[in-house]
C-alpha cells in the first residue's frame, strides 16, 4: 500500500480521530484525573460493551440497514445465559448458548428482512419489543444474579493489567476489520449497501449475506450480554435499554453512512471512544446531569461537524 492509498483508505477517519484527540486534550487540561493509566483503562473497559455492539451495527449500517433490537437482544441472551449458568451448565457451553441466542434473534431479523421483505427498521423494532417481552416472560421480570468467579473473570479479570473486556473488544475489532476488508461477507456488505441491485445482478446471494449480517449483529449483542452479565454479576430482563442509540451513534460518528456502502471498523471504535471518554470526563468534572445531556449532544454535533469540514477540505 502506497502512502497515498493509505490516506485514501484511512483519511476519512482523521476528522473523528482529531475530534477524539481534541476531547482528550481538553479533558487533560481540565482535570488531573483524566490522563492516568488507570482511568484510561477504566474508559476502555466502560466503552467495551457499546463498542462491541457497535461492530455489529457497523456491518448492518454498511448494508444500508439498521438494528434497533440490539439492546433487547442483550437482555434476552443475558437472561438465557444466566439461567444456563445457574443450571450449572459448563461455562463454555453456557457462553455458547448466550452467543447462539443472540445470533438466532439476529437471524430472525435477517430472515424477516430478506424473505419477508420487511424494512430493517420495522423488523428490528418489532424484535426490540419481542425480545424484551421474551426476556421479561422468561424471568418473570426478576434479575438472575450470582455467578461463579470463573464466569465473572470475563469482566473483572485482567491480563497484564489489561481488563479482559478490553482484550475481548480489541480481538473483536481486529477480527471484524479483517472480515470487513478481506472476506466475502465484508465485501458483499459494502456491495449490498452501495447498490443492492448491482449486487444481485452480479450474482451475490444478497439474501444470504444480509441475513448473516443481522445474525452477526445479534451474536455480538450476545457477546456484549456476556460481558455485561459478568460485570454486574446479574442478568436483568430490562438491561440494554437504548443501547441501540449509543451503538448507532458510535457507528455514525465513526464515519459510517446511514445510506450504506461506506464505513470502517476503526472509525466505529473511535466513535465509541468519543462517547465513552465524554461520559467519563463529564463525571470526572462533576458536571451536573442536566448539563451533561446538553454537552453530550453538542459534542456529538461538533465532532461530526469537524469531520465533515475536514472531508470537504480534502475535496
Amino acid at each position, binding site marked *: 500500500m502506497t502512502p497515498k492509498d493509505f490516506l485514501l483508505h484511512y483519511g476519512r477517519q482523521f476528522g473523528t480521530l482529531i475530534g477524539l484527540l481534541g476531547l482528550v486534550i481538553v479533558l487533560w487540561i481540565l482535570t488531573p484525573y483524566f490522563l492516568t493509566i488507570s482511568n484510561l483503562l477504566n474508559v476502555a473497559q466502560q466503552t467495551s460493551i457499546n463498542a462491541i455492539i457497535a461492530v455489529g451495527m457497523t456491518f448492518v449500517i454498511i448494508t444500508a440497514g439498521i438494528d434497533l433490537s440490539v439492546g433487547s437482544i442483550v437482555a434476552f441472551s443475558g437472561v438465557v445465559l444466566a439461567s444456563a449458568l445457574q443450571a450449572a451448565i459448563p461455562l463454555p457451553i453456557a457462553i455458547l448458548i448466550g452467543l447462539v441466542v443472540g445470533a438466532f434473534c439476529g437471524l430472525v431479523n435477517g430472515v424477516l428482512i430478506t424473505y419477508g421483505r420487511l424494512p430493517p427498521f420495522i423488523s428490528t423494532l418489532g424484535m426490540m419489543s419481542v425480545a424484551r417481552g421474551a426476556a421479561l416472560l422468561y424471568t418473570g421480570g426478576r434479575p438472575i444474579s450470582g455467578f461463579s468467579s470463573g464466569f465473572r473473570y470475563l469482566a473483572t479479570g485482567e491480563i497484564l493489567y489489561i481488563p479482559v473486556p478490553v482484550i475481548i473488544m480489541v480481538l473483536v475489532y481486529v477480527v471484524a476489520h479483517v472480515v470487513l476488508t*478481506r472476506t*466475502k461477507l465484508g465485501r458483499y456488505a459494502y*456491495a449490498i449497501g*452501495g*447498490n443492492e*441491485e*448491482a*449486487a444481485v445482478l452480479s450474482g*451475490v*446471494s444478497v439474501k444470504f449475506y444480509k441475513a448473516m449480517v443481522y445474525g452477526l449483529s445479534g451474536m455480538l449483542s450476545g457477546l456484549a450480554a456476556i460481558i455485561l452479565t459478568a460485570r454486574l454479576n446479574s442478568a436483568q430482563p430490562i438491561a440494554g435499554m437504548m443501547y441501540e442509540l449509543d451503538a448507532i451513534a458510535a457507528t455514525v460518528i465513526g464515519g459510517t453512512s446511514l445510506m450504506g456502502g461506506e464505513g470502517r471498523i476503526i472509525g466505529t471504535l473511535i466513535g465509541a471512544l468519543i462517547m465513552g471518554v465524554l461520559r467519563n470526563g463529564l463525571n470526572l468534572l462533576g458536571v451536573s446531569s442536566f448539563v451533561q445531556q446538553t454537552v453530550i449532544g453538542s459534542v456529538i454535533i461538533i465532532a461530526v461537524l469537524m469531520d465533515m469540514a475536514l472531508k470537504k477540505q480534502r475535496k
Partner: protein
Amino acid sequence: MKNDTVLELHHIRKTFPGVVALDDVRFELRRGEVHILLGENGAGKSTLVKILSGAYQKTAGQIILDRQEIDIKSPRHAQELGIAIIYQEFNLVPQLSAGENIFLGQEQIHASGLINQREIIASAQGILDDLGVEIEARKAVSELGVAQQQMVEVAKALSLDARILIMDEPTSALTEQEITELFNTIRRLKQKGVSIIYISHRLEELFEIGDRVTVLRDGKYIDTCNIADVSKSELISMMVNRELKEHFPKLRAARGEEVLRVNGLGINGVLHDIAFSLHRGEVLGIAGLLGSGRTELASSLFGVSRIDSGEIYVKGKRQRIKSPRRAINLGIGLLTEDRKSQGLIMILSTKDNICLPSVERFSRIGFVDTREEIQAATQYVGDLHIKTPSLQQQVMFLSGGNQQKVVISKWLCCQADILIFDEPTRGIDVGSKVEIYHLMNRLTAEGAAIIMISSELPEILGMSDRIMVMNQGRIAGEFSAGEATQEQILHYALEGAA
C-alpha cells in the same frame, strides 16, 4: 436447428403491470456470431436480454440452451450457464473500486478463506489494460467518469469468460477511441467462439461489427436477416415501420441577439481560458475526447461547479451563477450526461419528473396547479412520443431511451431558452433521434440557443451551426458548420490547438 446454434428462444412473452413488453418473440444465436438486436426505444430489447441474464423471469415461452430447455433462475444461474451481460444502465457499486466491481461475486479466495485483494486488483488491471483503457483498478467507481464506468462494465462482463456475451448499448457512453478498442475486443472474442448479442442504436456500428440482426417492434418479433443482405434504410423501416428521409434534418434559423458570452473562464486544473459566445437561433456543437472538460464547462455555466476566473454574460448582463436555481431563472437548462444519477428521480412518476424544474412556474402562492402540470406533461409525452403506460408510471420502469426523452421534456417544459444538451441522444433510437433534431430545429426557430455536447461526430457535424473542439480543458479550435470535417475535428481533439 443448425449445428452451431447455442441458444434458441421460442414464444417468449413478458408482461409487467399494464405493459406487454414482449409478445411471442423468437431468437436464435449461433456460435461465434455477433447478433444485433434492433428496435425502437421500448421495443423490448433490454427486457429480452434481461430474461437471458436471469434478472427477469419470462412470463411464458421456451429457452433452449445447447439443445436443452432450461429456466434461467437468477443472475448467478445465468453466470453458471456461461452467460454474461453488460446492462444498459450501470450496475456498479460506486463505493467499491473498479477492480472490486469487476470481480464482485467471483472474488478469488486464498486458502485462508480471505479475499485475495492483490490478485483481484492485478487481474482487473489486466483486463482493463487489454481493453486499452487507462483506468486504475483500485480507484473507486464513484470517482470515474461515465465512459470509464462503462468500460468497467465491459471489463466486468469479460471477466466471466462467458460463452454468450450480451452487450446492451455498450457504446452509448463511449467516445470513438474506446469504441474502436471495444470492437477489437469483440472481434477477438468472436474468434474464440464466443457468441455476442449486441444492442445499439448506432446503425453504423451494426454494419461494422454485426453478422446477423433481429428486429423487434413493440415487443413483437419482426424479422432476422444477415447484415450483409440488408441496407440501413431497410432496417430503419423494419424498426419504425416508416421511411426516414433524412438523418440530420438540420434547418438553419435566423441568428439573433447574443444570449450568452463567456470570457476567460477557468477552473483551476480543469478549464482554462474558455471564451465563446452564443446567439439565439444557433446550435453550438462542442466536440472533444473523454475528459476534455466539456461536461465541466456545462456544469460551470449551470452553477454547479464554482469558477475560479472569468466572466459570464447572460443576455447582455454579467451574472454570477451560483446555483442551478439561478441558472434556471436566467433561462438556462442543462440536460446532464448521466440521466440515472443526475437527470431523473427514478422513483417518481413521469409527470413529476417532467414538471420538476417548472414547479415554480406552475405554482401560485406555493400551491402547484396540478391540472397545468398534467396538461404540460401530457403534451410532452405526446410531442416526444414517450412510451409510458401512464403519466403516473415511475420512470424507473421506462425503457432507457424513453427515460432520456423525459429528461429532455423537463427542460422544454420549463421554457429554458439557453439549452445545454450534454450527450442528448445517448441511447435514443434513430426515429426518436430525428424527432429530437426536429425539436432542436423548432427550438432554434423560436429563438432558443443550444449548446450541444456530443461524442458522436456525425451528430456534431450534422446539427451544429458552429463547432467548438475542446482538448484538455481548452478550446482547441472553432469552425463554422460548413468548413468542418470529421478529420479536422479529430485532429484538434487529439493534438490540441493548431
